[in-house]
């Protein structure tokens, strides 16, 4: 919960009343094990799911069993806030690690839209940023070099984790296997293995197990052509 408040407060001031409304919104935390669906493709949820800890992946599946991850969710992300209006999920959300989530009923979310316009705009902004992340991923997937694409993903995840207090001093944990990273990058696991080796040899990051230390932030940003505007991490009234 604090992760969501930290993130929204990076963008605009949240009053104590608005924070209380968010706390009241959530049902008790639930655990979901790694590999299980947090939200199932084509389901019609009557609640939206807030990620409290761990990592999730938004994904679509292919007939041959392949899968494309289209966004990685971190603590503080409402993974399917849009299900309030979309009704039926056009994609699934899978737990990439063991995660803890909390549900927010659509009835309560709808009540927020009727009584709390400023908080509504902040939550709306969050779904807009989901779309902005998709645009950046599409550009990276279609046009960037392999190393540039991986560098972009690492820069994005560092800033998003840092926003919610889960990364600092250019270091963070990314407990994802190379096949899972391949699903997120749209690349084979063999290729990801090679890119991890290249980005380490270039001394942009050190990568030991799941621990990533960014050694050269300006170099990583240059390699990725990373412009953080799309994450909207500055304070400006909405």
């Amino acid at each position: 919960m604090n992760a969501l408040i930290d993130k929204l407060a990076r963008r605009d001031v949240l009053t104590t009343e608005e924070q209380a409304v968010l706390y009241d919104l959530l049902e008790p935390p639930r655990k979901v094990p790694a590999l299980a669906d947090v939200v199932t493709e084509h389901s019609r949820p009557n609640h939206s799911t807030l990620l409290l800890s761990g990592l999730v992946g938004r994904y679509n599946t292919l007939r041959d069993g392949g899968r494309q991850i289209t966004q990685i969710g971190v603590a503080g992300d409402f993974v399917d806030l849009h299900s309030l209006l979309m009704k039926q999920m056009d994609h699934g959300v899978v737990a990439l690690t063991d995660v803890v989530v909390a549900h927010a009923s659509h009835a309560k979310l709808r009540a927020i839209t009727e009584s709390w316009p400023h908080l509504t705009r902040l939550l709306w902004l969050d779904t807009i940023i989901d779309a902005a992340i998709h645009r950046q991923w599409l550009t990276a997937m279609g046009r960037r070099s392999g190393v540039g694409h991986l560098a972009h993903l690492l820069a994005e995840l560092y800033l998003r984790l840092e926003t919610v207090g889960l990364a600092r001093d250019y270091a963070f944990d990314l407990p994802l296997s190379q096949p899972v990273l391949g699903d997120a990058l749209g690349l084979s696991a063999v290729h990801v293995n090679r890119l991890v080796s290249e980005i380490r040899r270039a001394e942009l990051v050190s990568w030991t197990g799941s621990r990533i230390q960014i050694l050269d932030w300006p170099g990583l940003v240059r390699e990725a052509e990373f412009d953080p505007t799309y994450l909207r991490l500055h304070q400006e009234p909405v």
Partner: protein
Amino acid sequence: MPRYFFNTRDGHCVRDNAGEILADDAAARREGLAVLGEILRYQDESFWNTGEFSVIVLDENARHVVTLTTRATRDDPPETPTP
């Protein structure tokens, strides 16, 4: 089904320690070609460090299945057509 490993080399060899389970050598050759194509598609300037890139396919007994290599050359192609 056997596990196959796809090491890659452009002067610097990157070992594949995870491998992939595939039906047979023919499937491993197809996968090796797909991997070669994919990596070349996304290579930046790094290919030109050596002008050569290989995918070396081994099975779980370290038996060499196939090596696929792409190499840049300035040799005249055979039978250069004259304008």
